[in-house]
């Protein structure tokens, strides 16, 4: 017998009540689906923002945790002599100190506050290769340059750079009131770290900001990335000695790409767990709603059950009819949830892209859709088990004798 036809007809007949029942399942599935598709995008976006693609770079920052503000003067800063010492380590190919300073850019009579990062003249080629950058207009900074600045791609376009005027190689710009020549504009990278960056040779930036021997971050390239944790240990040991601290009470953080990634993932996982808990509660409420609707339905359709039995329906067939109908309730709620969740994921990813300047492609995860549909059918039919059993056990005589 065609249970599916039956189920669909009955759901159609029930109309708005069915739809209200489905809100719980709908919200739950929408939350799960949007979270999953957003979560993927979010991970990719965040990962690319931190430049974690390059797996052989270790970075060192002063402070008790990697999340403390760079250059914050509460902590004992790292110095150029630390950089030199790290460079002496056998596992290290090279180490570069970098400083990030808040600066004032002025162009076309518009002032912008932003940060500039120092480029070590001695290691400029290596830095470019770590960052994987190249100039779209003009050129990169090269040794001997003075009072020159290299800008990220966001500064180029007059519509988006905030200066209302195209800024390109050869133009003069004021940095903290001093005239600098724009030597080049970088290629678009899709990550705000690069696209909004202002790069100035260390000696020029030191002159502007006066940070002396201090550095904010030391970026280290290792000889062999298979021994990256060995290199990390070497660096930690060296810095403990130089800064005179014990194991466990380090006032600096050495982070490898893996450790940074795992921190990012921890945060994302926490968000996911939270959403999954909310989704589970919604689905539970949805399941209770379905149980309620189906129980009411069994009472309302006692007569129909009696008729079905009088024309030869077995208890198992009555059970299946209600069971499948209940599963359909779940699957419809799930389908609507999937549509909404996918839309949220899609537009959410686009929003993340806009926000971070990332270029993550919104993805439609078909296996996620399939398992969500299957899951909502299972939830629906599981919720229908007891009502369906109740339906199957109806005494046909009682059901038929009731006046319609």
């Amino acid at each position, binding site marked *: 017998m065609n249970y599916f036809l039956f189920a669909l*007809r009955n759901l159609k007949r029930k109309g708005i009540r069915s739809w209200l029942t489905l809100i719980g399942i709908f919200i739950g599935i929408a939350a799960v689906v949007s979270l999953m598709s957003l979560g993927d995008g979010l991970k990719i976006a965040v990962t690319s923002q931190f430049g974690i693609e390059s797996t052989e770079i270790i970075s060192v920052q002063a402070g008790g945790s990697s999340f403390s503000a760079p250059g914050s003067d509460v902590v004992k800063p790292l110095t150029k002599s630390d950089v030199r010492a790290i460079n002496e380590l056998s596992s290290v190919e090279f180490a570069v100190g970098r400083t990030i300073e808040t600066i004032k850019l002025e162009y076309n009579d518009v002032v912008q506050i932003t940060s500039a990062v120092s480029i070590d003249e001695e290691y400029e080629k290596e830095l470019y290769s770590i960052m994987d950058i190249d100039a779209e207009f003009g050129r990169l900074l090269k040794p001997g340059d003075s009072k020159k600045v290299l800008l990220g791609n966001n500064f180029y376009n007059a519509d988006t750079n905030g200066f209302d005027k195209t800024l390109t190689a050869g133009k003069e710009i004021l940095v903290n009131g001093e005239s600098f020549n724009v030597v080049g504009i970088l290629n678009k990278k899709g990550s705000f770290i690069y696209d909004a960056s202002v790069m100035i040779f260390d000696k020029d930036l030191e002159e502007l900001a006066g940070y002396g021997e201090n550095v904010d971050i030391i970026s280290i390239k290792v000889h062999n990335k298979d021994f990256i944790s060995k290199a990390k240990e070497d660096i930690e040991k060296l810095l403990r000695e130089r800064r005179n601290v014990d194991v466990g009470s380090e006032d600096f953080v050495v982070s490898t790409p893996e450790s940074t990634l795992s921190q990012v993932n921890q945060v994302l996982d926490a968000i996911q767990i939270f959403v999954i808990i909310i989704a589970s509660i919604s689905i539970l409420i949805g399941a209770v709603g379905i149980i309620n609707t189906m129980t009411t339905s069994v009472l309302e359709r006692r007569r129909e059950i009696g008729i079905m039995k009088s024309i*030869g329906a077995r208890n198992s067939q009555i059970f299946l009819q209600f069971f499948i109908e209940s599963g359909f309730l779940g699957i419809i709620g799930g389908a609507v949830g999937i549509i909404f969740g996918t839309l949220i994921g899609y537009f959410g990813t686009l929003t993340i892209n806009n926000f971070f300047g990332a270029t993550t492609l919104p993805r439609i995860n078909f296996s996620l859709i399939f398992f969500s549909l299957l899951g909502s059918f299972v939830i629906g039919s599981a919720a229908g088990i007891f009502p369906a059993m109740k339906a199957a056990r109806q005494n046909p005589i009682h059901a038929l004798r009731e*006046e319609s």
Partner: protein
Amino acid sequence: MKKEGVIIQLKNVERHYHIGENIVRAVDRINITVNRGDFVAVMGPSGSGKSTAMYLIGSLDIPTHGHIFLDGYDISVLGESDLAQIRGRNIGFIFQQFNLIPTLTVKENITLPMSLQGISKEVMEERAKKILEKLELTDRAEHYPNQISGGQQQRVAIARALANDPEVILADEPTGNLDSKTGERVMDVLKKLNKEGKTIVMVTHDHDLAYQYADIVYWLKDGKIEKVSKRK
């Protein structure tokens, strides 16, 4: 045309209901024998137990005591699944309230008993076509029950009862919800089916109807058979 032999036999059948502290004997030691091809009417005022008797014959209910034989098989000892099969294949029910499934079309209502028996789609289509023609419902096949008249609904119910070509048709006040003219038409259909060999057991409180159509009339009162009248 009529085949010979006993098709339904009720032997000392009792059906008790518990209502609070009291036991109500809805059917109290009745004996009924129906031969193949008979048109039997069960008469009685409301509460006389006539509907209970019909549900017992139709295997929708199980006797408290006694035995019911259908085609030689004791159905009072069968399990739920076997009883469902008997209701599906050997018996066709017709009710006062028509009892069609409102969400299904006329044709789907007629094919429903067949699909419950797992009959193939092609056979169902073919049979439904014949039955629809026979009951002059072909042009109503795609209508829903609420789109057709009471008389037509009852003819659909008869069509549904014929779906699996059962030997026995049980009709519970088949004209109770119809005006006399449409009622007559429905009765003519039942009479015609009887002439073609179907055994018909009809429950009614309508004296004239019983005597006009039935060969044998059982009078029930307080769950007991009061008298049996046979057509001369």
